[in-house]
Protein backbone atom coordinates (compact mmCIF):
# COMPACT_ATOMS: atom_id res chain seq x y z
CA UNK A 1 0.00 0.00 0.00
CA UNK A 2 1.36 3.39 -0.93
CA UNK A 3 1.90 6.01 1.70
CA UNK A 4 -0.71 8.74 2.18
CA UNK A 5 0.11 11.96 0.34
CA UNK A 6 0.28 15.22 2.27
CA UNK A 7 0.55 18.76 0.96
CA UNK A 8 1.34 21.89 2.99
CA UNK A 9 0.77 25.37 1.58
CA UNK A 10 1.05 28.86 3.00
CA UNK A 11 -0.93 31.92 2.05
CA UNK A 12 -1.34 35.17 3.97
CA UNK A 13 0.57 34.01 7.04
CA UNK A 14 3.92 34.52 8.71
CA UNK A 15 5.35 31.03 8.17
CA UNK A 16 5.10 30.12 11.82
CA UNK A 17 2.63 27.37 10.97
CA UNK A 18 5.15 25.68 8.66
CA UNK A 19 7.67 25.97 11.46
CA UNK A 20 5.23 24.46 13.96
CA UNK A 21 5.19 21.25 11.90
CA UNK A 22 8.93 20.95 12.54
CA UNK A 23 8.32 21.79 16.21
CA UNK A 24 6.77 18.38 16.80
CA UNK A 25 10.43 17.34 17.20
CA UNK A 26 11.31 13.69 16.65
CA UNK A 27 7.73 12.93 15.63
CA UNK A 28 8.46 14.71 12.33
CA UNK A 29 10.75 11.80 11.42
CA UNK A 30 7.94 9.32 12.09
CA UNK A 31 5.67 11.53 10.04
CA UNK A 32 8.12 11.69 7.13
CA UNK A 33 8.29 7.86 7.25
CA UNK A 34 4.53 7.48 7.26
CA UNK A 35 3.58 9.97 4.56
CA UNK A 36 4.79 11.35 1.24
CA UNK A 37 4.96 15.11 1.05
CA UNK A 38 3.87 16.21 -2.41
CA UNK A 39 3.93 19.97 -1.87
CA UNK A 40 5.58 22.05 0.85
CA UNK A 41 6.94 25.30 -0.61
CA UNK A 42 8.47 26.39 2.67
CA UNK A 43 10.60 23.27 3.13
CA UNK A 44 10.90 21.31 -0.11
CA UNK A 45 11.13 21.97 -3.82
CA UNK A 46 7.96 20.98 -5.63
CA UNK A 47 6.29 22.65 -8.58
CA UNK A 48 2.65 23.66 -8.81
CA UNK A 49 2.55 22.03 -12.25
CA UNK A 50 3.20 18.63 -10.65
CA UNK A 51 0.18 19.18 -8.42
CA UNK A 52 -1.93 20.28 -11.38
CA UNK A 53 -0.97 17.06 -13.19
CA UNK A 54 -2.32 14.87 -10.35
CA UNK A 55 -5.65 13.09 -10.42
CA UNK A 56 -8.57 14.67 -8.54
CA UNK A 57 -8.57 13.59 -4.90
CA UNK A 58 -5.10 12.08 -5.13
CA UNK A 59 -3.70 14.06 -2.18
CA UNK A 60 -4.96 12.64 1.11
CA UNK A 61 -4.52 15.61 3.43
CA UNK A 62 -3.74 19.23 2.61
CA UNK A 63 -2.76 21.58 5.42
CA UNK A 64 -3.49 25.19 4.43
CA UNK A 65 -1.94 28.02 6.46
CA UNK A 66 -3.07 31.60 6.22
CA UNK A 67 -6.03 33.52 4.89
CA UNK A 68 -6.57 34.42 1.25
CA UNK A 69 -5.39 37.91 0.32
CA UNK A 70 -4.54 37.75 -3.37
CA UNK A 71 -5.66 36.06 -6.55
CA UNK A 72 -2.62 33.77 -6.68
CA UNK A 73 -3.44 32.28 -3.30
CA UNK A 74 -7.05 31.86 -4.35
CA UNK A 75 -6.00 29.96 -7.48
CA UNK A 76 -3.70 27.60 -5.59
CA UNK A 77 -6.15 26.70 -2.83
CA UNK A 78 -8.88 26.10 -5.41
CA UNK A 79 -6.51 23.77 -7.26
CA UNK A 80 -5.62 21.98 -4.03
CA UNK A 81 -9.31 21.61 -3.16
CA UNK A 82 -9.82 19.69 -6.40
CA UNK A 83 -6.82 17.45 -5.80
CA UNK A 84 -7.34 16.77 -2.08
CA UNK A 85 -9.57 14.45 -0.11
CA UNK A 86 -9.25 16.44 3.12
CA UNK A 87 -8.50 20.14 3.51
CA UNK A 88 -7.42 21.25 6.99
CA UNK A 89 -7.42 24.97 7.81
CA UNK A 90 -4.18 24.85 9.76
CA UNK A 91 -3.76 27.65 12.30
CA UNK A 92 -5.87 30.64 13.19
CA UNK A 93 -5.09 32.58 9.99
CA UNK A 94 -6.70 29.99 7.76
CA UNK A 95 -9.62 29.55 10.13
CA UNK A 96 -10.29 33.16 11.22
CA UNK A 97 -7.99 35.41 9.18
CA UNK A 98 -5.43 35.82 11.95
CA UNK A 99 -3.26 38.86 12.54
CA UNK A 100 -3.04 39.77 8.81
CA UNK A 101 -6.82 40.14 8.72
CA UNK A 102 -6.58 43.29 10.85
CA UNK A 103 -6.23 44.86 7.39
CA UNK A 104 -10.01 44.38 7.13
CA UNK A 105 -10.37 47.37 9.47
CA UNK A 106 -8.82 49.48 6.68
CA UNK A 107 -8.56 48.84 2.97
CA UNK A 108 -6.01 48.21 0.26
CA UNK A 109 -5.47 51.89 -0.51
CA UNK A 110 -4.80 52.76 3.15
CA UNK A 111 -2.44 49.83 3.62
CA UNK A 112 -0.46 50.67 0.47
CA UNK A 113 -0.23 54.26 1.63
CA UNK A 114 1.21 53.17 4.98
CA UNK A 115 3.53 50.48 3.67
CA UNK A 116 4.86 52.00 0.45
CA UNK A 117 4.34 55.77 0.59
CA UNK A 118 3.97 57.40 4.02
CA UNK A 119 6.14 55.17 6.22
CA UNK A 120 9.09 57.30 7.48
CA UNK A 121 11.63 54.55 6.78
CA UNK A 122 10.53 54.07 3.16
CA UNK A 123 12.29 55.84 0.28
CA UNK A 124 10.02 55.57 -2.75
CA UNK A 125 10.50 58.58 -5.04
CA UNK A 126 8.62 56.97 -7.93
CA UNK A 127 5.57 56.42 -5.65
CA UNK A 128 5.45 52.80 -6.80
CA UNK A 129 2.95 50.38 -5.28
CA UNK A 130 2.35 46.73 -6.22
CA UNK A 131 0.18 46.35 -9.30
CA UNK A 132 -1.33 43.31 -10.96
CA UNK A 133 0.01 44.36 -14.38
CA UNK A 134 3.04 46.50 -15.08
CA UNK A 135 5.48 47.19 -17.91
CA UNK A 136 9.24 46.74 -17.54
CA UNK A 137 11.66 47.06 -20.48
CA UNK A 138 8.84 46.57 -22.94
CA UNK A 139 7.58 43.36 -21.31
CA UNK A 140 4.26 43.09 -19.56
CA UNK A 141 4.67 41.61 -16.08
CA UNK A 142 1.88 40.03 -14.14
CA UNK A 143 1.57 39.64 -10.38
CA UNK A 144 -1.32 38.28 -8.33
CA UNK A 145 -3.91 40.95 -7.57
CA UNK A 146 -4.15 41.92 -3.88
CA UNK A 147 -7.73 41.95 -2.58
CA UNK A 148 -9.31 44.75 -0.58
CA UNK A 149 -10.43 42.28 2.06
CA UNK A 150 -8.63 39.30 3.52
CA UNK A 151 -10.83 36.21 3.36
CA UNK A 152 -10.81 33.22 5.62
CA UNK A 153 -10.16 29.93 3.88
CA UNK A 154 -13.76 28.77 4.10
CA UNK A 155 -14.88 31.98 2.37
CA UNK A 156 -13.05 30.72 -0.70
CA UNK A 157 -13.16 26.90 -0.63
CA UNK A 158 -14.90 24.11 1.22
CA UNK A 159 -12.91 23.22 4.37
CA UNK A 160 -13.15 19.87 6.16
CA UNK A 161 -11.39 20.48 9.47
CA UNK A 162 -10.01 23.40 11.43
CA UNK A 163 -6.93 23.32 13.63
CA UNK A 164 -6.76 26.53 15.72
CA UNK A 165 -3.75 28.17 17.32
CA UNK A 166 -1.10 30.67 16.38
CA UNK A 167 0.61 28.36 15.64
CA UNK A 168 -1.12 25.11 16.69
CA UNK A 169 0.61 23.48 19.65
CA UNK A 170 2.72 20.34 19.02
CA UNK A 171 0.42 18.11 21.09
CA UNK A 172 -2.59 19.29 19.06
CA UNK A 173 -0.80 18.69 15.77
CA UNK A 174 0.25 15.15 16.72
CA UNK A 175 -3.26 14.39 17.92
CA UNK A 176 -4.92 15.80 14.83
CA UNK A 177 -2.58 14.19 12.32
CA UNK A 178 -2.83 10.88 14.16
CA UNK A 179 -6.60 11.05 13.98
CA UNK A 180 -6.71 12.02 10.31
CA UNK A 181 -4.00 9.61 9.14
CA UNK A 182 -5.38 6.79 11.26
CA UNK A 183 -8.64 7.01 9.33
CA UNK A 184 -10.62 7.94 12.46
CA UNK A 185 -12.33 10.87 10.81
CA UNK A 186 -14.38 13.22 12.97
CA UNK A 187 -17.54 14.76 11.44
CA UNK A 188 -16.88 17.32 8.72
CA UNK A 189 -16.44 20.87 9.94
CA UNK A 190 -15.00 19.82 13.31
CA UNK A 191 -12.72 22.29 15.03
CA UNK A 192 -9.98 20.09 16.41
CA UNK A 193 -9.86 21.47 19.96
CA UNK A 194 -12.23 21.42 22.96
CA UNK A 195 -15.24 23.73 22.66
CA UNK A 196 -14.85 25.32 26.11
CA UNK A 197 -13.34 28.54 27.39
CA UNK A 198 -9.64 28.64 28.25
CA UNK A 199 -10.51 29.82 31.79
CA UNK A 200 -12.03 26.43 32.55
CA UNK A 201 -8.68 24.66 32.23
CA UNK A 202 -6.46 27.59 33.34
CA UNK A 203 -4.30 26.86 36.37
CA UNK A 204 -5.14 30.30 37.81
CA UNK A 205 -8.90 29.77 37.66
CA UNK A 206 -9.03 28.90 41.37
CA UNK A 207 -7.60 32.29 42.40
CA UNK A 208 -10.61 34.22 41.12
CA UNK A 209 -12.44 36.05 43.93
CA UNK A 210 -16.22 35.70 44.27
CA UNK A 211 -16.79 39.13 42.82
CA UNK A 212 -14.11 40.27 40.41
CA UNK A 213 -13.73 44.03 39.90
CA UNK A 214 -11.38 45.78 37.52
CA UNK A 215 -10.67 49.27 38.84
CA UNK A 216 -8.35 50.11 35.96
CA UNK A 217 -6.87 48.35 32.96
CA UNK A 218 -3.12 48.03 32.85
CA UNK A 219 -0.83 46.54 30.31
CA UNK A 220 1.38 43.65 31.25
CA UNK A 221 4.63 45.66 31.18
CA UNK A 222 3.24 48.24 33.60
CA UNK A 223 2.99 45.87 36.55
CA UNK A 224 4.98 43.07 38.11
CA UNK A 225 2.53 40.28 37.56
CA UNK A 226 1.90 37.77 40.33
CA UNK A 227 2.66 34.35 38.75
CA UNK A 228 -0.31 32.64 40.44
CA UNK A 229 -3.12 35.21 40.32
CA UNK A 230 -5.81 35.44 37.64
CA UNK A 231 -4.72 38.21 35.24
CA UNK A 232 -8.13 39.87 35.16
CA UNK A 233 -7.96 40.12 38.94
CA UNK A 234 -4.60 41.90 38.53
CA UNK A 235 -6.25 44.49 36.22
CA UNK A 236 -4.55 43.06 33.13
CA UNK A 237 -6.63 42.27 30.06
CA UNK A 238 -6.59 38.52 29.43
CA UNK A 239 -8.62 37.09 26.54
CA UNK A 240 -9.15 33.78 28.34
CA UNK A 241 -12.92 34.15 28.87
CA UNK A 242 -13.58 34.55 25.13
CA UNK A 243 -10.98 32.09 23.88
CA UNK A 244 -11.12 28.40 23.10
CA UNK A 245 -9.31 25.85 25.19
CA UNK A 246 -6.82 23.30 23.91
CA UNK A 247 -3.48 25.12 23.80
CA UNK A 248 -2.39 24.09 27.29
CA UNK A 249 -1.98 27.80 28.23
CA UNK A 250 1.78 28.19 27.58
CA UNK A 251 1.42 32.01 27.68
CA UNK A 252 -0.17 31.92 31.12
CA UNK A 253 2.57 29.57 32.30
CA UNK A 254 5.09 32.14 31.03
CA UNK A 255 3.27 34.81 33.05
CA UNK A 256 1.80 36.53 30.01
CA UNK A 257 -1.94 37.09 29.54
CA UNK A 258 -3.85 35.25 26.81
CA UNK A 259 -4.19 37.22 23.56
CA UNK A 260 -6.86 34.96 22.10
CA UNK A 261 -5.04 33.05 19.36
CA UNK A 262 -7.18 29.93 19.71
CA UNK A 263 -10.21 31.83 18.46
CA UNK A 264 -13.78 31.89 19.75
CA UNK A 265 -16.00 29.04 20.88
CA UNK A 266 -18.53 27.61 18.46
CA UNK A 267 -20.92 30.19 16.94
CA UNK A 268 -19.40 32.99 19.01
CA UNK A 269 -17.90 36.30 18.04
CA UNK A 270 -14.68 36.68 20.00
CA UNK A 271 -14.81 40.46 20.44
CA UNK A 272 -18.47 40.54 21.40
CA UNK A 273 -17.87 37.79 23.93
CA UNK A 274 -14.93 39.64 25.48
CA UNK A 275 -16.86 42.92 25.67
CA UNK A 276 -19.64 41.00 27.34
CA UNK A 277 -17.24 39.50 29.87
CA UNK A 278 -15.56 42.84 30.61
CA UNK A 279 -18.92 44.58 31.04
CA UNK A 280 -19.58 42.34 34.00
CA UNK A 281 -16.34 43.06 35.85
CA UNK A 282 -15.43 46.68 35.09
CA UNK A 283 -15.93 48.93 38.10
CA UNK A 284 -17.64 52.32 38.17
CA UNK A 285 -21.19 53.60 38.63
CA UNK A 286 -21.35 56.42 36.13
CA UNK A 287 -20.26 57.00 32.56
CA UNK A 288 -17.24 59.16 33.48
CA UNK A 289 -15.76 56.57 35.84
CA UNK A 290 -16.30 53.78 33.29
CA UNK A 291 -14.75 55.92 30.55
CA UNK A 292 -11.66 56.49 32.67
CA UNK A 293 -11.20 52.73 33.01
CA UNK A 294 -11.92 52.09 29.33
CA UNK A 295 -9.19 54.55 28.35
CA UNK A 296 -6.90 51.64 29.27
CA UNK A 297 -8.00 49.90 26.05
CA UNK A 298 -6.78 52.25 23.32
CA UNK A 299 -7.44 49.82 20.47
CA UNK A 300 -10.50 47.67 21.28
CA UNK A 301 -10.90 46.04 17.85
CA UNK A 302 -7.22 45.18 17.61
CA UNK A 303 -7.23 43.76 21.13
CA UNK A 304 -10.40 41.69 20.91
CA UNK A 305 -10.14 40.59 17.28
CA UNK A 306 -6.37 40.23 17.06
CA UNK A 307 -6.70 36.81 15.46
CA UNK A 308 -10.27 36.82 14.18
CA UNK A 309 -11.10 40.05 12.36
CA UNK A 310 -11.88 38.33 9.07
CA UNK A 311 -14.33 36.01 10.84
CA UNK A 312 -15.97 38.67 12.99
CA UNK A 313 -19.52 39.90 12.53
CA UNK A 314 -18.50 43.21 11.00
CA UNK A 315 -15.03 42.53 9.61
CA UNK A 316 -15.98 40.64 6.51
CA UNK A 317 -18.41 40.75 3.65
CA UNK A 318 -21.91 39.58 4.26
CA UNK A 319 -22.50 36.06 3.01
CA UNK A 320 -25.11 37.04 0.45
CA UNK A 321 -22.70 39.46 -1.23
CA UNK A 322 -19.87 37.01 -1.67
Amino acid at each position, binding site marked *: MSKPKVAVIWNASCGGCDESLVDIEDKIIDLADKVDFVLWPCAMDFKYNDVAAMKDGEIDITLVNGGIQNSGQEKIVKLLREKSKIIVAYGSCAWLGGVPSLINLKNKKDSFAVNYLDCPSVINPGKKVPMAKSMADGYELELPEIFDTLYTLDDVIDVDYYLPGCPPMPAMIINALGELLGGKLPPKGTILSPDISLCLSCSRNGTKPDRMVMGEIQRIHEIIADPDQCFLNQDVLCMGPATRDGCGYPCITGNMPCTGCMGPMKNQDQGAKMISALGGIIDGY*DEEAVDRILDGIPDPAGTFYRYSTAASYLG*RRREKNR
Partner: protein
Amino acid sequence: MTEFKPKIIAFLCSWCSYAGADKAGGQKLRYPANILVVRVMCTGRVDPRFVLKAFREGADGVMVLGCHTGDCHYRNGNMKAMKRMRLLSRMLPQFGIVKERLMFNRVSGGESELFQKLATEMTENITLMGPLKIEGFVKTEGAL
Protein backbone atom coordinates in the same frame (compact mmCIF):
# COMPACT_ATOMS: atom_id res chain seq x y z
CA MET B 1 -34.88 58.81 -5.41
CA THR B 2 -37.05 57.32 -2.72
CA GLU B 3 -36.91 58.78 0.74
CA PHE B 4 -34.55 57.01 3.14
CA LYS B 5 -36.42 55.34 5.96
CA PRO B 6 -33.94 54.17 8.59
CA LYS B 7 -34.35 50.83 10.31
CA ILE B 8 -33.66 51.15 14.01
CA ILE B 9 -33.64 48.20 16.38
CA ALA B 10 -34.51 49.05 19.98
CA PHE B 11 -33.74 46.58 22.76
CA LEU B 12 -36.08 47.59 25.59
CA CYS B 13 -35.98 46.33 29.15
CA SER B 14 -39.25 44.63 29.97
CA TRP B 15 -39.49 46.26 33.41
CA CYS B 16 -39.05 49.95 32.58
CA SER B 17 -38.29 51.06 29.02
CA TYR B 18 -40.77 48.66 27.44
CA ALA B 19 -43.37 49.80 29.93
CA GLY B 20 -42.44 53.39 29.04
CA ALA B 21 -42.89 52.67 25.33
CA ASP B 22 -46.15 50.92 26.11
CA LYS B 23 -47.34 53.92 28.05
CA ALA B 24 -46.36 56.19 25.15
CA GLY B 25 -48.62 54.06 22.99
CA GLY B 26 -51.39 54.18 25.59
CA GLN B 27 -51.18 57.97 25.74
CA LYS B 28 -51.26 58.10 21.96
CA LEU B 29 -47.93 59.92 21.82
CA ARG B 30 -46.57 59.98 18.28
CA TYR B 31 -43.14 58.52 17.63
CA PRO B 32 -41.57 57.33 14.36
CA ALA B 33 -42.52 53.90 13.09
CA ASN B 34 -38.87 53.20 12.19
CA ILE B 35 -38.23 51.91 15.69
CA LEU B 36 -38.47 48.10 15.75
CA VAL B 37 -38.81 47.04 19.36
CA VAL B 38 -37.24 43.89 20.79
CA ARG B 39 -38.40 43.28 24.34
CA VAL B 40 -35.77 41.75 26.62
CA MET B 41 -36.10 40.81 30.26
CA CYS B 42 -33.14 43.02 31.16
CA THR B 43 -30.65 45.09 29.17
CA GLY B 44 -28.01 42.92 30.86
CA ARG B 45 -29.25 40.19 28.53
CA VAL B 46 -28.27 42.24 25.45
CA ASP B 47 -25.10 40.54 24.33
CA PRO B 48 -22.88 42.89 22.25
CA ARG B 49 -23.24 40.20 19.63
CA PHE B 50 -26.95 41.08 19.20
CA VAL B 51 -25.96 44.66 18.39
CA LEU B 52 -23.26 43.60 15.94
CA LYS B 53 -25.64 41.19 14.31
CA ALA B 54 -28.30 43.88 13.99
CA PHE B 55 -25.82 46.15 12.19
CA ARG B 56 -24.65 43.32 9.98
CA GLU B 57 -28.18 42.30 9.02
CA GLY B 58 -29.08 45.79 7.89
CA ALA B 59 -30.03 47.94 10.87
CA ASP B 60 -29.05 51.60 10.48
CA GLY B 61 -29.11 52.25 14.19
CA VAL B 62 -29.48 50.37 17.48
CA MET B 63 -31.00 51.66 20.72
CA VAL B 64 -30.56 49.96 24.06
CA LEU B 65 -32.83 51.42 26.71
CA GLY B 66 -32.70 50.25 30.30
CA CYS B 67 -33.66 51.24 33.81
CA HIS B 68 -32.23 54.19 35.72
CA THR B 69 -29.15 53.51 37.84
CA GLY B 70 -30.15 51.56 40.93
CA ASP B 71 -33.58 50.63 39.57
CA CYS B 72 -32.62 47.35 37.90
CA HIS B 73 -35.03 44.53 38.68
CA TYR B 74 -32.03 42.20 38.77
CA ARG B 75 -29.83 44.54 40.85
CA ASN B 76 -27.15 45.49 38.31
CA GLY B 77 -28.06 44.29 34.81
CA ASN B 78 -28.42 47.85 33.54
CA MET B 79 -24.95 48.76 34.83
CA LYS B 80 -23.42 45.83 32.98
CA ALA B 81 -25.27 46.85 29.85
CA MET B 82 -24.04 50.44 30.21
CA LYS B 83 -20.42 49.27 30.45
CA ARG B 84 -20.79 46.88 27.53
CA MET B 85 -22.39 49.47 25.25
CA ARG B 86 -19.83 52.06 26.32
CA LEU B 87 -16.98 49.76 25.29
CA LEU B 88 -18.79 48.64 22.16
CA SER B 89 -19.34 52.23 21.04
CA ARG B 90 -15.58 52.74 21.29
CA MET B 91 -14.98 49.76 19.05
CA LEU B 92 -17.61 50.43 16.36
CA PRO B 93 -15.76 53.39 14.76
CA GLN B 94 -12.84 51.05 14.05
CA PHE B 95 -15.21 49.00 11.91
CA GLY B 96 -16.43 52.12 10.15
CA ILE B 97 -19.66 52.65 12.09
CA VAL B 98 -19.96 56.09 13.71
CA LYS B 99 -20.70 55.68 17.38
CA GLU B 100 -23.89 57.77 17.29
CA ARG B 101 -25.54 54.84 15.54
CA LEU B 102 -25.61 53.01 18.88
CA MET B 103 -27.54 54.67 21.68
CA PHE B 104 -27.66 53.61 25.30
CA ASN B 105 -30.03 55.50 27.55
CA ARG B 106 -32.34 55.12 30.50
CA VAL B 107 -36.11 55.34 30.42
CA SER B 108 -38.32 54.39 33.34
CA GLY B 109 -41.84 52.98 33.14
CA GLY B 110 -43.44 56.38 33.60
CA GLU B 111 -41.31 58.39 31.21
CA SER B 112 -43.36 57.99 28.07
CA GLU B 113 -42.48 61.50 26.85
CA LEU B 114 -38.78 60.73 27.25
CA PHE B 115 -39.18 57.60 25.15
CA GLN B 116 -40.99 59.61 22.51
CA LYS B 117 -38.23 62.23 22.56
CA LEU B 118 -35.37 59.69 22.31
CA ALA B 119 -37.05 57.71 19.55
CA THR B 120 -37.70 60.87 17.52
CA GLU B 121 -34.19 62.21 18.04
CA MET B 122 -32.55 58.92 17.12
CA THR B 123 -34.63 58.62 13.95
CA GLU B 124 -33.79 62.19 12.93
CA ASN B 125 -30.08 61.65 13.58
CA ILE B 126 -29.93 58.41 11.63
CA THR B 127 -31.92 59.92 8.76
CA LEU B 128 -29.33 62.69 8.54
CA MET B 129 -26.47 60.16 8.61
CA GLY B 130 -27.97 58.08 5.83
CA PRO B 131 -27.99 54.32 5.41
CA LEU B 132 -25.24 52.23 6.98
CA LYS B 133 -22.97 50.53 4.46
CA ILE B 134 -20.70 47.76 5.65
CA GLU B 135 -20.49 45.88 2.37
CA GLY B 136 -17.23 45.28 0.60
CA PHE B 137 -14.31 46.29 2.71
CA VAL B 138 -15.58 47.48 6.02
CA LYS B 139 -14.17 50.97 6.21
CA THR B 140 -16.85 53.02 4.48
CA GLU B 141 -17.67 55.69 7.02
CA GLY B 142 -14.29 57.19 7.83
CA ALA B 143 -14.71 57.82 11.53
CA LEU B 144 -11.15 57.02 12.56
